[in-house]
């Protein structure tokens, strides 16, 4: 248990360093810098003023020098300073992190739960009516563009029916606090979470359906049925723990995609999260902020994958007791029968 954790943490340091260097080089190779952006917003500046800004922001130094300085600060735990926002990057990112985590966390939980249930329901009788319906709907959800779904949900529930707020994270005019404040945030979460979930529910439904169908043909399921286990026990006690493994792997992979995919949803719903922050940062060449967001995301992704591994270890004894390869590698599932209850 401890060794893989330690290994992961070591990996994390390497990943963070690699991301910092790579992103720095990539971002610096984009034409234009923050001072160009500030100057184009201002409309009327002098060359001396631009030179002064570049000197002030350290942009007049050689790229390599800037990179070394950045890595040096990073090693001391300093993510740098955003001259655009006039604030340290750490605070900026930390401010936005909870809002994005709330959105992504809620959407992931909902998608996995609903997706699994739909997948199981569909797998019970492949090509039956339920399956056809669920597969059809998930294909739709899978292919409809996010922003369109978002706008349609807003028009229906926000504008026409007036049931749900059309954007923002809380009703800033009302200034609720305490539990009413939390309720207000939940109220504002419904539409963005629903939008983000529609796609992922479809993904997980398809994935768990395929995996469930696969598992249900295994010998140990037949054995379980033969010894007289009830259907619910067969599905949830015997089949699900094995069927859920690929879904979990996918979840680990997608936790990163979700952080990026939420940019659209955050923009449409005026959700002040990391997605919007990084989008603005790209547009304005605010490299420290973008690097900060990317580093935070990298850490989140590594940590969530670690969590997925731990859950898999708990569910799957093969992962727990590796014979040769790295403990962290999830295995192909179909070679051996899984754990028998």
């Amino acid at each position, binding site marked *: 248990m401890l060794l893989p954790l330690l290994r992961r943490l070591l990996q994390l340091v390497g990943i963070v360093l690699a991301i910092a260097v790579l992103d720095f080089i990539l971002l610096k190779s*984009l*034409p*234009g*810098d923050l001072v*160009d*952006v*500030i*100057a*184009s*917003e*201002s*409309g*009327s*500046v*002098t*060359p001396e*003023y*631009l030179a*002064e800004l570049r000197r*002030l922001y350290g942009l007049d130094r050689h790229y390599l020098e800037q990179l070394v300085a950045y890595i040096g600060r990073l090693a001391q735990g300093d993510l740098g300073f955003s*001259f*655009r*926002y*006039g*604030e340290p990057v750490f605070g*900026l990112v930390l*401010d*936005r992190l909870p*809002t994005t985590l709330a959105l992504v966390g809620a959407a992931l939980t909902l998608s996995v739960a609903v997706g699994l249930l739909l997948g199981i329901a569909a797998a019970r009788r492949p090509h039956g009516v339920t399956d056809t319906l669920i597969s059809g709907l998930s294909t739709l959800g899978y292919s409809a563009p996010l922003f369109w779904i978002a*706008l349609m949900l*807003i*028009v229906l529930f*926000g*504008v026409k029916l*007036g049931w749900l*707020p*059309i*954007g*923002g*994270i*809380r009703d*800033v*005019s009302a200034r609720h606090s305490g539990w009413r404040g939390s309720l207000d945030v939940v109220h504002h979460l419904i539409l963005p979470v629903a939008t983000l979930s529609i796609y992922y529910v479809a993904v997980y439904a398809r994935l768990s359906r395929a995996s469930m169908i696969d598992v249900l043909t295994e010998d140990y399921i037949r054995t379980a049925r033969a010894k007289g286990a009830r259907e619910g026990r067969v599905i949830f006690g015997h089949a699900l723990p094995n069927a859920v493994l690929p879904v979990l792997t996918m979840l680990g992979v997608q936790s990163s995609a979700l952080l990026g995919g939420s940019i659209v949803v955050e*923009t*449409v*719903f*005026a*959700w*002040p*999260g990391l997605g*919007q*922050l990084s989008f*603005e940062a790209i*547009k*304005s*060449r605010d490299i420290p902020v973008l690097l900060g967001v990317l580093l935070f995301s990298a850490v989140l992704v590594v940590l969530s994958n670690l969590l997925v591994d731990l859950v898999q270890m708990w569910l799957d004894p093969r992962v727990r007791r590796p014979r040769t390869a790295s403990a962290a590698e999830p295995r192909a599932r179909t070679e051996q029968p899984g754990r028998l209850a």
Partner: protein
Amino acid sequence: MTCRHSDHGENRAGTDGVIERAPVVDRRELFGLGGALLAGGALGSLFPREAHALTEAPVPAVENARAGGTLDAVVHPEPPTLAFFMNTATPTRAVVSKIFDGLVDYGPDLKPRPQLAESWETSADGLTWTLKLRKGAFWHDGTPFTSADVQFSAEVVWRRYAPTAKRIFQYLTKVEVPDAHTAVLTLSKPTPVIINALDVVAAPVLPRHLYEGTDIPNNPYNNKPVGTGPFVFKEWARGSHIRLERFDRYWQSGRPFLDGILWKIIPDVSGRANALETGLVQYGERNPVTFADADRLAKSDKLVVNKDGYNGFAGWLWLIPNLRHPILGQLKVRQAILHAINRDLLVKTVWGGYATPATGPVSSLLKTFYTPDTPQYPYDRKKAEALLDEAGFPKQADGWRFKLNHDFIPFGDDYRRTGEFVRQALRAVGIDVTLRGLDLAAWTKNVFAEYNFDLVSSWGINWQDPQIGVEQHYWSKAEAKGTPWFNASGYARPEADKLLEAAQTETDPARRVAIYHDFQKLAQADLGLLNILEFRWFGVWDARLRNVTNTFNHSQSNFAHVWFEQSA
């Protein structure tokens, strides 16, 4: 010539462009009276301008004004910073102009109205400006506002940081403060444009006690500003909202009417339309929604869609031909390009009627300086083709005359569609145009730092004076590689330089206007820029909101006199 504008009584009455106890019957008459008073009385004689009747007179009604209510407004995009004395981005202006007052404000007629300066006087040689400052004005932390604040701002902030002031006050040699409410600015050369550049953003006044001796670009108050304006900064939740509350010790008693302003940040354009439609916000300015949504919202009796209040924010769109380019360097080719573009159709289709064809670099909204009497290039495809033939670019065997890249200015869909329109128009006369979409930073770098372009679109604001908004695009000495929005075409014409430089120091207002008229004629004959259209910005607001358009620029109105007719 000494211009005196120090009749305090009248100035005070006219402070928000409003006559508070006028024996009025009729809105039109009220406005006429206000205009007459401003033009002929307290503030006139600066420039021999007339009181300009607007298409629709703003309703300067503070009689029976109701105090109270918080205005929920949308600001877009989110301001990058509130350090308006360094970054003058428009959303920053919109928010900060409520928190800070300027030395003067301007009315819809673009005449100065006293704000922190109660009156101003210029010496006969134009080298000394004496500002009488308001007594009884306070910073939001309770510190009295004095001439020391103006002195510090002029000597440090204008000279080193404020982009417009840096240009306008380049001949400022010293600032003296004989008493706590007088500031005397001494110049080494007359600079008549100053009277048109004393607003809150052009000549920012910062609290000396919070800024002196500090690292100004990183001063902690930059993003939690302490101003003298009618609203106090309370909080900025990034990505969500900026909250302002009424300043109880504002220098003008009884103002502001509103209890506060809550700026909501809504990045998506349809999100803003929904927010206005559902009443989540009651005010949005500078084209907050698409043209199609504007027409839709205009039909609601709860909302007003209106184009007034932008005479000092007159924007126009032009094409920059790279004159270093062997083909675009030829005048006939540039004439042909203008003749090839049906600008009436462009205005109607792409801009939904929220624009009008431009006749030159000075917008018709900037009435004092505008002249329509300039060379024009109406839509005429045959003439365009003939000019291209004459210039020596006949159609080749493949049907094309030559190839061009057109990089539209990356400010959104309207500009992309304008680029598509231009491409289509030029292809129709045999110019093989490739349209390229770049992001702002890359586009800025290409156009202004490397002059690596053929034909690009660009836009700008006239502001209150061509010297602030137009000169930089035509003056050869303004060409400064790497500096956005300065002469990038490579236009260098001694006659144009001579006119622009004469206007910089001409102290006789009438003569100065005449110089700018000559300049506009020359600009349209030389076609250093291909002026395409003038914007007609629109705002959308709640029909109960009063006094919104009583400003030279929505994005810079301090909202002290804005009120809600019924409870909000």
